[in-house]
């Protein structure tokens, strides 16, 4: 469920390839008679995505508890969300994590992609190894990092060994640093993914073009800004949009690393949705929270599409 509409943007880029040369009159087509081939897929989509999303939006305005009857309570759920400090805190956390995630994983992923694009002898091995975290369950990754951040864990021991004893602390128990720790884990797991997308984009940049720019006296930075960047614009759009949405939905890592603590300092909208709906059985309120998160995701993806649209 990490795939998103940015793929749609990418289609525009690749679907522009010329249509097969078959004559217009002879083109192979499928007529109305075969619409039922698509029926199971359409039915599943309507039942599991559109119907559920629509009724989720409906329950957001009720006080339903999951069983029995319910009343319409208008916007009460929403006023309660924005008046509860922990929930507005969760909203801020979600935004901070999402932006940090987009920046961190895209900058580091792009740097690795640029380094491993061509030239290096170890590039194939390193690509394979760096992509490894992507295929592992986020929950498993979180446990590894929970150990790294533990008080007697590797991070503190390393700090002690290099003479930074004063920096040692219980990372996940510190309200200010726990969020940063969650962010590090998210970024770490996603670097391989953005790297692969950028590598695919960089593969479309012809060497000759860079050579020509170099001959004209452009330095590496200038070449990147004026030649490479514009050509990998579609990859930038895909990678940033995907990581933005993934960041806004962040759940697994928080649950496994901190459980939302200490004292709610790392709660996000997705973990609040889970707790209010499935732990406290407030379906209506959980749905309202989910609606806030969904609207947020929609707004940001639209803005994002606009900001990274193809400028060529």
């Amino acid at each position, binding site marked *: 469920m990490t*795939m998103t*509409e940015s793929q749609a943007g990418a289609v525009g880029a690749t679907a522009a390839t010329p249509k097969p040369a078959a004559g217009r009159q002879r083109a192979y087509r*499928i007529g109305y008679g075969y619409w039922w081939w698509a029926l199971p897929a359409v039915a599943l989509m309507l039942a599991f995505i559109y119907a559920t999303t629509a009724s989720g939006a409906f329950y957001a305005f009720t006080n339903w508890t999951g069983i029995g009857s319910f009343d319409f309570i208008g916007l009460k759920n929403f006023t309660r969300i924005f008046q509860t400090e922990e929930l507005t805190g969760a909203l801020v956390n979600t935004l901070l994590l999402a932006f940090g995630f987009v920046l961190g994983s895209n900058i580091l992923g792009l740097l690795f992609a640029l380094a491993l694009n061509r030239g290096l002898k170890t590039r194939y091995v390193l690509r394979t190894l760096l992509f490894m975290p992507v295929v592992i369950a986020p929950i498993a990754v979180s446990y590894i990092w929970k*150990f790294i951040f533990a008080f007697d864990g590797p991070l503190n021991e390393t700090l002690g060994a290099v003479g930074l004893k004063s920096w040692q602390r219980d990372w996940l128990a510190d309200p200010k640093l726990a969020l940063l720790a969650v962010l590090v884990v998210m970024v770490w797991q996603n670097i391989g993914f953005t790297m692969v997308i950028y590598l695919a984009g960089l593969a479309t940049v012809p060497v000759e073009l860079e050579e020509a720019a170099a001959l004209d006296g452009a330095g590496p930075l200038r070449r990147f800004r004026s030649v490479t960047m514009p050509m990998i614009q579609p990859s930038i759009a895909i990678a940033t949009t995907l990581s933005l949405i993934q960041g806004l939905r962040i759940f697994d890592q928080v649950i496994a690393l901190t459980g939302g603590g200490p004292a709610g300092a790392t709660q996000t909208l997705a973990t609040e949705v889970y707790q209010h709906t499935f732990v406290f059985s407030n379906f209506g309120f959980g749905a309202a929270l989910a609606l806030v998160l969904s609207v947020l995701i929609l707004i940001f993806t639209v803005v994002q599409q606009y900001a990274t649209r193809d400028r060529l």
Partner: protein
Amino acid sequence: MFHYTKKTLLLEIVTILAAVVMLMPFYFLISTSLKTQDQVLTTSSLSFPVSPTFENFVTLLSPSSDASSSIFQGLLNSVIITAGTIAALVVIGSPAAYVFARSTSRWSTRTYYLFMIAILLPTQLGVVPLYVEARDLGLVGTPFGMIVVYTGMLIPLSVFLYGGFFRRLPRDYEEAATVDGASRTRIFAQVVFPLMGPATGTVAILAGLIVWNDFFTALIFLNGSGFQTLPVVMYNYVGSLVSQWNLIFAVVIISMVPILAFYFFAQKKFIQGYAGGLKG
């Protein structure tokens, strides 16, 4: 001009160092899982055990332990649910995408857009009613129900990925087969679908990874039932171990081995699946 120069060597060294730092967590994972509980407490967390032991793995996997049955059960459930979902996504998604790619009617284009928008819609909002709907249909807490739920959630992705491949497939084969008198069904089953190997691979890898690693949906739908998938089993088991990192990491490694083995076996396909599938 891009020869291997001293500068390239320097870049290579820096990149390797960065990669080593990136991969450090795997070192901690392995070294800790090979320690005894005593060694975890007494030795440095940075050090590799002097006498590595597989005791933790034996403890977890030997038939006499409590953990082994839930781990094997979780593994089995994960395999069944992932395989079932992939099969359903291929069988249901490919003919649908084919119709959308080959039909010229306005309605088919519009329906195809509905699939694309469905990928965009955030899952969170639907999760609550989805749970209620699935509960009423008796789909909660069973592997079959989980396959249905995952298939429903991922069908837009499947149709979208197949759609991209179908539209780039030249129609010549189908036209030749029509001339030879093959029916539409036969053309699809024996000509088009076999040509779609890469598309099926992409759908299987992307959807398979999502399902295999999924924690949120599995937690909601399967927790407490006898059919938990591996991530949920791991979550519950780790919850019962307080800071027994040697055992926790042995569980984590056991849960990672199947997917990593698969990854190294088909790593080119994985990476292409991600890069190519996303390009549509």
